[in-house]
């Protein structure tokens, strides 16, 4: 069942077309990844789904309803730039934000207590946010996003600024939410998380969707055109290869994407001649590779500079 549906959505700010003719659907009970370089239009799209911005043209429906204050209540949204009132007590703040999502006071208090307890944060209730550490306030932010028990969760770059432990916790919570039948949409440009978590992806570039669908299908459509090579010895032979792109290169590892249908056995022969091969594996391209080959290296380089 389609729970979020975008149909030829466009949004411009002055002359700058932030999003043009974007269409995609998010299925209920799945984790949906929105990928793309910075400035590709992910945040604008997310804001439109949240009814913070209105599309210039096209339609957005949430659970069959056009995006509106009513659909906002179905969504828990955590923006990329997180924030809370610094001079407000944690408990009051969570109550306020949850009530704004339309929850009754008593139900809201119950939900807040439940989540504070689950995150081991009950003691912070009377504290002002300014007294909390960064990790603590991130947890409070997360509770503020989920306390009203929505069906849809939207996280804009949820892993940015998280330490590895909190990242792992967040990953577990997201997967846990899916097992409860909730729908999660998040944007990121960190591919390994997408590969580990997402059921479906949609790749954005320059305001347009350039690739979308079930993550496994997307990957298999690229075929097993990549070699994972583990070796010991001089790796300089890799520089002699032509018609390939090498990602993730280190002193004894390389991910080699073979372009133009070159014969992979030749690469193996060359490798054996120069180094001791520990592993030679033909695999589907990594998402990172798919991202690069779809968006184009130039874009990625620009992003890295920015």
């Amino acid at each position: 069942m389609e729970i979020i549906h975008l149909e030829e959505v466009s949004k411009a700010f002055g002359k700058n077309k932030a999003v043009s003719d974007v269409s995609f659907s998010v299925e209920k009970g799945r984790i949906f990844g929105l990928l793309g370089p910075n400035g590709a239009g992910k945040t604008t799209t997310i804001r439109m789904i949240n009814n913070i911005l209105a599309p210039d043209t096209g339609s957005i429906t949430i659970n069959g309803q056009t995006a509106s204050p009513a659909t906002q209540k179905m969504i828990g949204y955590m923006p990329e730039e997180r924030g809370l009132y610094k001079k407000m007590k944690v408990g009051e703040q969570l109550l306020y934000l949850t009530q704004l999502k339309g929850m009754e006071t008593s139900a809201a208090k119950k939900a807040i207590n439940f989540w504070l307890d689950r995150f081991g944060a009950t003691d912070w209730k009377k504290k002002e946010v300014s007294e909390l550490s960064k990790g603590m306030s991130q947890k409070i932010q997360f509770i503020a996003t989920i306390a009203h028990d929505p069906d849809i969760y939207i996280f804009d770059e949820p892993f940015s600024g998280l330490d590895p432990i909190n990242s792992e916790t967040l990953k577990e919570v997201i997967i846990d939410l899916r097992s409860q039948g909730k729908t999660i949409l998040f944007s990121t440009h960190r591919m390994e998380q997408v590969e580990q978590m997402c059921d479906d992806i949609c790749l954005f570039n320059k305001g347009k969707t350039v690739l979308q669908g079930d993550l496994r299908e997307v990957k298999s459509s690229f075929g097993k055109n990549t070699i994972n090579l583990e070796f010991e010895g001089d790796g300089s032979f890799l520089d002699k290869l032509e018609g390939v792109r090498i990602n993730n290169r280190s002193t004894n590892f390389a991910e080699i994407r073979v372009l133009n249908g070159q014969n992979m056995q030749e690469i193996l022969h060359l490798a054996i001649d120069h180094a001791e091969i520990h592993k030679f594996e033909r695999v589907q391209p990594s998402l990172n590779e798919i991202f690069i080959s779809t968006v184009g290296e130039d874009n990625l380089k620009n992003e890295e500079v920015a």
Partner: protein
Amino acid sequence: MDFGKVFLVLKREYLTRVRTKSFILSTLLTPLAFIAMMAIVIYVSISDGEVTRTVAVIDQTEVLYNNLEELDPARYSDASSLPLDSVRAQVLAGDVDGYIILTEDNISYTEKPTLVYGGAGGISFIESVESDVRRVLREERLARSNVSTEVREIFETRYNIDSLKLTEEGEEEDNAIVGAVFGFILGLLIFIGVFGYGAVLMRSVIEEKTNRIVEVIASSVKPIELMTGKLLGICVLALTQFGIWIVSYIGLSLAAAPVATMFVDAQMSNIPPEAVEASASFDPSKLEAFIVDPTIFLFFFVFFIIGFLIYAGIFAAIGAAVDSEQDTQQFMMPVMIPIFIAYFLNLRVMENPDSTIAVVASMFPLTAPINMISRIAATDVPILQIITSLLLMSVTFVGLMWLAAKIYRVGILMYGKKPSYKELAKWIRQG
């Protein structure tokens, strides 16, 4: 608009601010500071300035100096026996502030006396010397002309008038001066309230932007609901403060006269009858002048609320357009100009509440909140003028709010470069 959400925003805005130390302190301390300020003003105007300016008198008539010394022994010193050069040296050295030579020609007024002074003291110094000298000259001349005591009394009487105001209920003591000063103070309060609480609102909007919480809020509430809630919350906050001040004022003004009478009566019974007359110069019933018709406060609240709403929208829009308080300055000018004009005009309104300029200022919607309340307190403003003023203000409020809401809507999600006026115009068209 979802008024449930507006109310939630209003409640948060109000409750978090009403509990702050700065609000509690300003509510308590402002009246005290105000009373202290009034006391200082009264003290300064009663006492002859903080320094006594001295004048050396070279008296060639041998009668005038004694009279001057009687008037103000601290000011006048006899320099009749000193040579002029040494008196001049004293003035230059600052030992005395000036000298004056009095001659027979001055008494006959064939020649004006001249005060030569070192430049310090200003107009009030010259005026007080002038009035002293005038008085002794006149008295001496009258004495020499052998006029009757009756004529001398005529000259010594200071003629004042009492004023009474005729109303439907009969003649009433007219407190025109109290009314004018009171009106000015009410206008001042609106000025401070609109400006001060407008700035509070602006900072509150900036705070939500810099905290980045605004995007979370925007995913639950429409920008116009958020803005309305914040604006009303701060308006209620201001009304709370003014309400406390006004209720205490009414209480104090009602209690002042009876309490003072009680004290005076208690003292009278303890002191001998001959001293009673001396203390009778203080009449406790004069304090009743401070009791004002409470309907003026009703007008005060109406004009404050509409005045605040007119300006608050702009303050909110400015807050939304910038990222930090430092960036607000260029946008503050257009807000500050009308509000400061209203403040300065208020002095003129106080002096002459029925002049054309006062009438115009009390109708023009940007100055009306301040100037109309001063007029209402100081004079009888035709009801038609009050209604026109309120209507014009309401129309202005709606128009400005409409513009402000558009800027606010775009601005709260914009970060980075401070927008120009041209960009703001673009935001308005976008909205």
